[in-house]
């Protein structure tokens, strides 16, 4: 078929050997976030998730006005741990809203071809999608936590300005990562497996809530602290308790934080493995 016609080349030739540039995932993340910001529900969810920040700031303000109140609601690491823990429901809602369709829609409609017919690898695509969800979840966990810290420090410099609270910043970031990374992985896996955003969202809730229910049943049956290892949420909280050095809850009191962290790490790696093997531009029908 290589025929003998002669052509005059009229177009700018691009060299196919152009090396792949760095940070190829950034445009995927940028366009994905731009699209999400266009939805009122997304912005509304963020706005609601930020309300507790103001509640906590009012709490801090009162403790500065009425120091005796600190005995009941102290301004310490536990305040920030509790705040971050209370953001988990918002994180779940945001995961289902922003994450369930991220891969499912592309795989269902064949939109993945639009990405993979560009100079991108599958890893770039996955990283781009992870970034979209990571940023979305940060907006309801890490960033409110950091803003709360900043606000609380301004309101109560005498309490939070001392050296013993210097580590609050990395503690908040670390706990947020412990919450966000496994959640991101799990939602994207559901999105890749279900191929329907609704089923992906439901599947995610089922796994997240289901493992917590399973933990309750296992604990009732065995009274073993290791029952907490079956629950994603319990593992997150246990690692958070360890990071903030706060008193653990009864069910996880004797659960080693290292084990909980290991479970979450394995979950993240498992999710990555599934994403790498399941996400394909071309449907293979067998």
């Amino acid at each position, binding site marked *: 078929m290589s*025929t003998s016609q002669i052509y005059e080349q009229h177009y700018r030739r*691009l060299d196919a050997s152009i090396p792949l540039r760095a940070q190829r995932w950034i445009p995927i993340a940028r366009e994905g976030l731009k699209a999400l910001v266009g939805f009122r529900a997304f912005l509304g969810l963020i706005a609601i998730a930020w309300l507790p920040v103001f509640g906590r700031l009012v709490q801090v303000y009162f403790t500065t006005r009425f120091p005796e109140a600190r005995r009941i609601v102290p301004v310490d690491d536990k305040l920030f741990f509790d705040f971050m823990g209370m953001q988990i429901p918002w994180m779940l809602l945001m995961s289902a809203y922003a994450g369930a369709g991220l891969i499912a829609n592309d795989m269902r409609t064949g939109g993945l071809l*639009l990405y993979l017919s560009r100079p991108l690898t599958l890893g770039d695509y996955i990283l781009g999608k992870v970034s979209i969800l990571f940023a979305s979840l940060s907006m309801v966990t890490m960033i409110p936590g950091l803003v709360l810290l900043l606000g609380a420090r301004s309101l109560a410099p005498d309490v939070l300005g001392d050296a013993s609270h210097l580590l609050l910043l990395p503690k908040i970031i670390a706990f947020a990562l412990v919450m966000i990374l496994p959640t991101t992985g799990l939602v994207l896996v559901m999105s890749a497996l279900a191929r329907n955003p609704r089923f992906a969202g439901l599947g995610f809730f089922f796994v997240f809530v289901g493992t917590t229910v399973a933990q309750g049943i296992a604990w009732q049956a065995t009274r073993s602290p290791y029952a907490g290892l079956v629950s994603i949420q319990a593992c997150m909280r246990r690692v958070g308790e360890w990071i903030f050095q706060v008193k653990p809850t009864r069910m996880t009191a004797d659960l080693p934080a290292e084990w909980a962290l290991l479970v979450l790490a394995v979950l993240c790696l498992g999710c990555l493995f599934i994403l790498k093997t399941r996400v394909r531009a071309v449907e293979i029908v067998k």
Partner: protein
Amino acid sequence: MTARVVFKKASRWYGPVMALNDVSFELGPGVYGLLGPNGAGKSSLLKLASGQLRPSQGTVELLGRPAFGSPGVFHSVGLCSDTDALFEDFTGLQFVSALLSLNGFDETEARKLATEAIETVDLKDAMHRKVGGYSKGMRQRIKLAQALAHRPEVLFLDEPLTGMDPQNRRRISDLMRRLGEEGRTVLVSTHILHELEQVTRRVLLIHNGRVLAEGDLGEIRDLLDRHPRSVRIKAADSRGLARELVVLPDLVSLSIEEATGHLLAEIRKPDAFFAKVQELSAACGVEEMWVTDENLESVFSYLVSK
């Protein structure tokens, strides 16, 4: 001229199903038609050529590199796939610009190239409208625009004219021909012979995963003219259009589908028919036209038996 797309004894199985069997050919600059009935393996061949699938056996090279696992070649390759997946909430301009940003173009350059490509496919008036509101023909054209926008050296177009009105069919056919004349390699897949005739005379005939023949379109066309083809037309004034078309000598049958109001015609020699539809398109409000050509199958069966 160096071959840009090279298949060497390439085969592809989907589990026990063989989609392509021992296919070998080379494509240099110019336009090539990939012709075959539905399910012949055209899309699989395009997916192998564009590196979306790994060959189960043999090799597929694109611009001198293995097509699969060489994302770098996509700086110089454009793909207009058969899937109808677009970013529905983006405008046409945002859609093409967003995909260009994946190629590494900055925002200004992406916008400039996107606008040019959208003008090329004659969608400028609709480029600020959301893609979700586009008609089938407009969606095809915006898909084509994204494939063209980064000025690729090799273009793979899977059924690019589906759902377009006669005027746009002609415009896009002219565009494909021009791209070939510029020295690009354009591989167009279709199951409609008439579409190819307007673009190229060089075809690859594929059936049941095998390349049956490669070469000039003329001989195949003669063969096909013996078989009537089915055409479906969406027009504002279907009855008026039917009145005008019924006098054509090579018309085999003509009816109006009750549910959709579409005009269904069976024709033998399509040239006169398409020319007449073109002529009447403005007066009768012709919006879309499809050649639902199941009869190609019989020609391929004939070729296989030869």
